């Protein structure tokens, strides 16, 4: 039996694409392992990076469990089809596949675009490939900074937020990869950025250290510890600041929105509210970080004010 999920998403609300992603996870999760699942984007004229990036991750997460997930590519809207080609959906670009001297040629294609390509960073790399990954992270971050004209301190904040999120995945997730994807909306004045993996999630990360955290039993418990800065590395003096500092820079400093999801729990923080919520039946394997970064007048923002 084929299952087709219809996606129509032409609104820019922050949480709506995440809600759609959760709906799809719930449907896929209730499907028999032997069924072919087709995620149908054919009626879309627009889609948010949170949804597109999330779809790539859940495809890989469910494939790991033995599911067969495909995307319907018969698009009604030719411009949307071209957009998906440009962002490399769903195949992504992998820095390890590049020769060292070919980065410039590749990134030249994106200098005037309002998006970066869907980028997948493999984990567990050889030292040489890890250097390529590091180089690529720098290039992708710089692409975002240049395109959004994030001068000075705001550029530094972007570097901090992206590097901390990716390093957390490399250090803690036990995921085979991380993905990053961003879309810039000049007319709306913000950047949407997703960084995600399909690893063991926050709960799995805490449960791997029963010596330090003997009672962590739920995703909510793990989320509370993560946003509180409790490090699974056990060196409290120098660890555990990444999530907290990133959140403070983005929300308090730049008036952005911060959404972190793992398992059946999410955390949402903006200047109006800060809350942990449960996702019901939908469970996200790994960690899903969705950020909205305003590109407005943030002249008073000082990067160093938020360093802990």
């Amino acid at each position, binding site marked *: 039996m084929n299952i087709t999920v219809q996606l129509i998403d032409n609104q820019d609300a922050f949480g709506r694409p995440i*809600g759609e992603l959760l709906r799809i996870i*719930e449907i896929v999760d209730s499907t028999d392992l032997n069924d072919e699942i087709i995620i149908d984007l054919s009626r879309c004229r627009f889609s948010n990076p949170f949804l597109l990036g999330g779809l790539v991750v859940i495809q890989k997460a469910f494939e790991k469990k033995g599911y067969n997930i495909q995307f319907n590519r018969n698009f009604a809207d030719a411009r949307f089809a071209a957009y998906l080609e440009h962002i490399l959906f769903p195949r992504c670009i992998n820095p390890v596949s590049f020769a060292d001297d070919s980065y410039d040629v590749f990134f030249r294609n994106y200098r005037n675009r309002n998006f970066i390509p869907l980028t997948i960073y493999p984990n567990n790399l050889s030292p040489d490939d890890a250097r390529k990954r590091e180089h690529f992270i720098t290039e992708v971050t710089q692409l975002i900074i240049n395109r959004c004209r994030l001068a000075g301190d705001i550029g530094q904040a972007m570097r901090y937020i992206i590097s901390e999120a990716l390093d957390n995945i490399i250090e803690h997730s036990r995921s085979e990869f991380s993905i990053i994807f961003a879309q810039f909306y000049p007319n709306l004045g913000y950047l949407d950025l997703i960084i995600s993996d399909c690893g063991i999630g926050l709960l799995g990360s805490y449960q791997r250290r029963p010596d330090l955290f003997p009672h962590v039993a739920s995703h909510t418990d793990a989320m*509370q510890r993560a*946003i*509180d800065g409790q490090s699974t590395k056990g060196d409290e003096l120098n660890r555990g600041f990444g999530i907290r500092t990133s959140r403070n820079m983005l929300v308090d400093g730049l008036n952005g929105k911060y959404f972190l999801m793992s398992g059946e729990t999410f955390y949402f923080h*903006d200047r*109006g509210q800060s809350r*942990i*919520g449960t996702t*019901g039946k939908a469970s996200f394997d790994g960690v899903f970080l969705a950020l909205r970064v305003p590109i407005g007048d943030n002249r008073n923002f000082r990067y160093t004010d938020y360093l802990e």
Partner: protein
Amino acid sequence: MTEEIFDVKAIAATSSLATREAAKNLFDHIRLNENLAIAILDFSSITFISRSFADQLLKEQVKAFNTSSIVVQLLNVPADVLAMIDKVSATQQKTGFDRSAVPVVRFADAETLNNFLVSI
């Protein structure tokens, strides 16, 4: 992992919660349950909470988490009540009382969750 739903109105015997004492009593009631991992506080039919109650609720939530690893989740919270909890939570975090004083909301169904996500 054990979880239990606590009917806040039934325990407090009122739909309007004014005092810190009411929050303390609620958590004394919760702590009577051994081996509890998740305490779900059902705010159905609660029409009002004071700032004092909200402040104490979050402090008790942090205490339950830090001392007994009990995760407290809020269910069926009316919008006005949640708005008060959000305000107090924001103040507590700003003043550095405790960063984990973040309300944990358990959505009653997929529609309620989706309504929240659409609103943010």
